[in-house]
């Protein structure tokens, strides 16, 4: 490609890049401006003021929210990977009629919006004493993330040649040993995908958190931010700083794991 058309493409690309970076730019400038600063959000701050971050962190109880987010996300992701990979092995290898049925059941759960069942779930969790606890919300996250994990793992296991297992079986390995020593290590790329997709969506979750984690101590970042937002709607600097702080971990993670992230999403989606 050369000449004029190349220039058109370059300009288009610059335009797209600028357009998509825009909200991040506004978030950035706003979060460093003190409340008295009435300048336009388009303008860079005169001085880079860190007070908003300090205030947001203290007022919105973000310290404990961060810990809650970390614990809930980490435990859920581990459970989704372990339970999902285990479940997918028989579903991928023994395509009996029963197993096809079970697989379809799991996968069709992907279209159930959590909200449609939240009302009965709310009563159930309350009756079991699970309000404001880690375990209840973790089990819910795990259940709702499992369908996608099973979908991705099953598809991937089917592409692993059976001969690998058959050879090991001749050597006398047990079925389960086989899974852990041969299959699970081979799942690395898809495990990374599942971990990233599940981790991001649990870290960012609002619906489950706002229903089941209402006490100040058990709040996650999104819930803390949403109460903060309705309380301090006039102080955009605080809200911007809080938003930036809670978005930082996924952003940093993404910038490091970008390749895995995009490749995993692409292969998982196209294969399905």
């Amino acid at each position, binding site marked *: 490609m050369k000449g004029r058309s190349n220039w058109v493409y370059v300009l288009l690309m610059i335009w797209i890049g600028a357009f998509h970076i825009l*909200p991040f730019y506004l978030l950035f400038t706003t979060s460093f401006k003190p409340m008295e600063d009435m300048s336009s959000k388009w303008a860079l701050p005169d001085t880079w003021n860190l007070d908003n971050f300090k205030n947001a962190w203290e007022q919105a109880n973000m310290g404990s929210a961060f810990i809650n987010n970390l614990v809930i996300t980490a435990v859920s992701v581990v459970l989704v990977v372990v339970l999902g990979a285990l479940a997918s092995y028989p579903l991928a290898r*023994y395509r009996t009629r029963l197993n096809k049925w079970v697989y379809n059941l799991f996968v069709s759960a992907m279209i159930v919006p959590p909200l449609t069942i939240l009302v009965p*779930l709310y009563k159930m969790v309350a009756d079991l004493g699970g309000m404001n606890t880690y375990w209840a919300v973790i089990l819910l996250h795990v259940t709702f993330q499992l369908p996608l994990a099973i979908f991705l793992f099953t598809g991937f296991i*089917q592409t692993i040649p059976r001969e690998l297992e058959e050879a090991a079986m001749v050597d006398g390995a047990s079925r389960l040993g086989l899974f852990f020593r041969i299959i699970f290590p081979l799942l690395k790329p898809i495990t990374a995908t599942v971990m990233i997709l599940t981790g991001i969506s649990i870290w960012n979750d609002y619906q489950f958190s706002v229903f089941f984690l209402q006490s100040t101590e058990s709040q996650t970042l999104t819930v803390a931010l949403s109460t903060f937002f309705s309380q301090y709607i006039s102080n955009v600097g605080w809200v911007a700083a809080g938003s930036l702080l809670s*978005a930082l971990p996924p952003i940093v993670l993404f910038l490091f794991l970008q390749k895995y992230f995009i490749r995993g999403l692409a292969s998982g989606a196209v294969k399905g």
Partner: protein
Amino acid sequence: MIRRSKKPHPSVWLNLLYVPALVLFVVFILYPFVKGIQVSFTNWDGYSQTFSWIGLDNYRRMLDDPNIGTVIQNTLIYGICSTLFQNIIGLAYALLLDKSIKGRGIVRTIVYLPVIISPLIMGYIWYFFFQLQGGALNDIVQLFGEQPVNFLGDPKWNVWIITFVNTYQYVGIAMVIYMAGLQSISREYYEAAELDGASGWQRFWHITLPLLMPAITVNIVLNLIGGLKLFDVIMALTKGGPGYASQSISTMMYKLYFASQDAGYAVALGNLMFVLISVFSLLALYFLRRREVV
């Protein structure tokens, strides 16, 4: 892809491996789902221990609800229009960023970045952009000597702003899936077409598009499901207001349950949302799969 086991006796006990997942599924999805259908036939308020069976009243109430038309219309706009925009723009981005131009990697990263941010936070950011007092957009409006516009409070604008924000946030997923689809198309088709003197447009129409059908199917179904159940972005930008102007089925449910203690009716609406999502995604699957070249 699926190969029959050559062994006549697969170790059936291995099926036990999916039992933990299945138990969670039954307890936390299937049971509440069935329970929800039952609750939708009652006048339960969501808290008390007593409620009575009122048959189809909640569903009849839906038909008479003066706001339901707006709410369903909004839900469909969020679902269908976001899907259209995400796919058209996502495909255009993929085609553009597939060309070997310096810096395309950075632009891809920037377009994809919003996907990983909480939709609630994405909503807050755009709130600062569209808000009446000191909003970034109104700074520009005032620059032209106009009065600031209440974008988020005006039903003429806010439904489309919410659609825009949802599209903006997830166009990156569509782009990535289309890029993967494009990379799987063999160069040879294009070379042959070029020899036959096909124009760029003809090549796109007769080669690229048909061979992209699997990616189109995935994208359309994913975006439809995401858009029809949209919740966080609406809560961040307008909370569904003013009145019912930008309400979707999901935010209306939330309001009915938490603000009005109207659990029976809320669940009935939830079931309507489930039916809408199932019908739309199955229809999309049915029509799109048939157009895929095998």
